[in-house]
């Protein structure tokens, strides 16, 4: 027997105030009765239309809930309706979003973002067409798309500022995904032309270069000391993570937050790339030790104490240089005293001839320290190497972001926000604009490019799923193309 839906009012303890109930019935038999948790004044209820009148305080909200409940019921109980172009596209969007969130194929963070998009469309449809509905058939009408685009531009924030075109474009792109899905699944003979969704948006805007730090700016970052005590810890942490990302193949901030000490193997760091899946291996460099040092001081002290120049196995040529230097007993020097000597000598161009030998000693000392440091780091109980997140909060889910609940997403979001705020403060002090957790990736990509590495190799380092993403990093954001190499070669040949 066919099921029907209606809304009824149910008494409350207050006289004249009733609660709206949804009631599903088949013939005379009531199958389901459930409160919608809205209390209204009985006199504001239109019992024929089954809607609240405009005298009720929250009439728009309540009526949209009633429409949405009706749509859900219609969709769930008449499968044929799903294929009809009279179906509400927003309802289809909502229904599909909820079901994919329930089965775990949509992440909590995506669900939250898409829900915001959906709310935007609903309020836009309500303002433009007087009801929060948008049948697929209507989407074939260019005037509907124009109204939607204009409606989406209006911000729902208090400031009433307009949304930028790229934001509206993103909203429409999300909506397009679901309409395309309906085109594919509904079996309709007249699919909605989703390419036409963007015809009222002007996406052209002047190319803006993403922030990329020069080698000197990277050094400045390394030497940066936070001013005052208030933000000292967060800025030091942000600085350490920023530089670590740069030294560790430009790993994403999310991957950096989830780095555990057990990922540090004898000769490399192996970490999972959460965004694209898979693993990435990163060889060690001393810069990584420097970044981890403030949070693993005992391991660092232990490694430095055990390393002395006298114990190193040095090439005979290097020993010849060291023996030529009078007044210094290298065999008893530890890393700190050697580096003191190294820095003193390197600042004087007179001693340029002995620098290659000193660099060899420095590299060997650092290699020894790295070996001991990373092996003692690995022996510690499992923990995140940067103290932004607590490993206990992500127990059992940290390898699979799809398992993240809203609480996990919130903690992660807060950590990212803290990190970016601290970086913004550092950027302000150093005079670097738009310093964010993504800048190390752009910086490394561009440094690799300027050193002559090809697109394919850079793409592998950054763990991009496709080289076209790397092109966005290099070409679209920084104007790097083959013309750079061609012109360089051309000028070399002309000399």
């Amino acid at each position: 027997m066919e099921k029907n839906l209606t809304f009824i009012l149910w008494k409350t303890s207050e006289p004249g105030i009733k609660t709206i109930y949804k009631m599903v019935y088949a013939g005379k038999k009531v199958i389901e009765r459930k409160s919608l948790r809205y209390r209204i004044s009985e006199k504001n209820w239109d019992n024929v239309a089954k809607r609240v009148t405009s005298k009720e305080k929250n009439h728009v909200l309540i009526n949209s809930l009633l429409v949405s409940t009706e749509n859900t019921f219609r969709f769930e109980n008449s499968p044929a309706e799903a294929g009809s172009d009279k179906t509400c596209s927003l309802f289809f969007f909502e229904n599909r979003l909820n079901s994919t969130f329930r089965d775990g194929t949509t992440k909590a963070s995506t669900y939250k973002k898409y829900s915001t998009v959906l709310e935007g469309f609903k309020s836009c449809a309500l303002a433009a067409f007087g009801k929060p509905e948008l049948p697929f058939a209507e989407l074939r009408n260019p005037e509907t798309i124009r109204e939607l685009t204009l409606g989406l531009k209006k911000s729902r924030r208090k400031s009433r500022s307009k949304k930028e075109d790229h934001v509206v474009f993103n909203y429409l792109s999300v909506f397009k995904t679901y309409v395309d899905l309906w085109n594919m699944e509904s079996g309709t003979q007249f699919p909605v032309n989703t390419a036409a969704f963007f015809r009222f948006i002007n996406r052209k805007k002047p190319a803006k270069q993403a922030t990329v730090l020069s080698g000197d700016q990277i050094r400045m970052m390394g030497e940066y000391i936070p001013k005052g005590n208030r933000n000292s810890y967060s800025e030091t942490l942000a600085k350490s993570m920023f530089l670590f990302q740069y030294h560790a193949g430009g790993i994403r901030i999310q991957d950096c937050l989830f780095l555990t000490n057990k990922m540090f193997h004898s000769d490399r760091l192996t970490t999972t790339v959460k965004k694209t899946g898979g693993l990435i291996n990163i060889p060690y460099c001393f810069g990584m030790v420097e970044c981890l040092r403030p949070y693993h001081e005992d391991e660092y002290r232990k490694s430095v104490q055990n390393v002395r120049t006298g114990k190193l196995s040095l090439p005979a040529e290097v020993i010849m240089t060291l023996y030529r230097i009078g007044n210094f007993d290298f065999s008893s020097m530890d890393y700190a005293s050697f580096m003191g000597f190294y820095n003193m000598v390197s600042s004087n161009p007179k001693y340029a001839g002995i620098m290659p030998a000193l660099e060899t000693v420095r590299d060997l000392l650092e290699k020894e320290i790295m070996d001991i440091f990373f092996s003692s780091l690995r022996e510690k109980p499992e923990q995140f190497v940067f103290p932004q997140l607590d490993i206990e909060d992500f127990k059992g889910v940290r390898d699979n972001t799809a398992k993240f609940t809203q609480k996990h997403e919130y903690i992660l979001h807060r950590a990212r926000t803290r990190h970016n705020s601290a970086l913004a403060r550092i950027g302000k002090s150093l005079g670097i604009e738009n310093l964010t957790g993504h800048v190390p990736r752009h910086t490394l990509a561009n440094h690799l490019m300027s050193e002559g590495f090809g697109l394919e190799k850079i793409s592998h380092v950054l763990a991009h799923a496709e080289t076209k993403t790397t092109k966005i990093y290099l070409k679209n954001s920084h104007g790097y193309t083959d013309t750079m190499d061609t012109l360089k070669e051309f000028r070399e040949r002309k000399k």
Partner: protein
Amino acid sequence: MFHFRTDITDTLEDVFLEDITVPKGNFFSLDELAGFSSNEPVMLDHKNVLTSGLEIYLLAIREGKRTIPVKREGRFSKIDIPNLALTA
């Protein structure tokens, strides 16, 4: 007339340290060299490349010496390999 060179010899001669070429690929630690002592002479081949006694050579540099006594090896010097395999 044949003229015999006298570069195949058992006698020691003083050679400037900077005239000696050191072969690549030899590694030592400073601690190891600090405790090193030997009576064996430094050996050079016919191209002044050091063939043995590198430690003595390095210590001579540390002591600031300008020359070092060496024993020269010619291209056709007898090669002395202890016959361990047959005596075992």
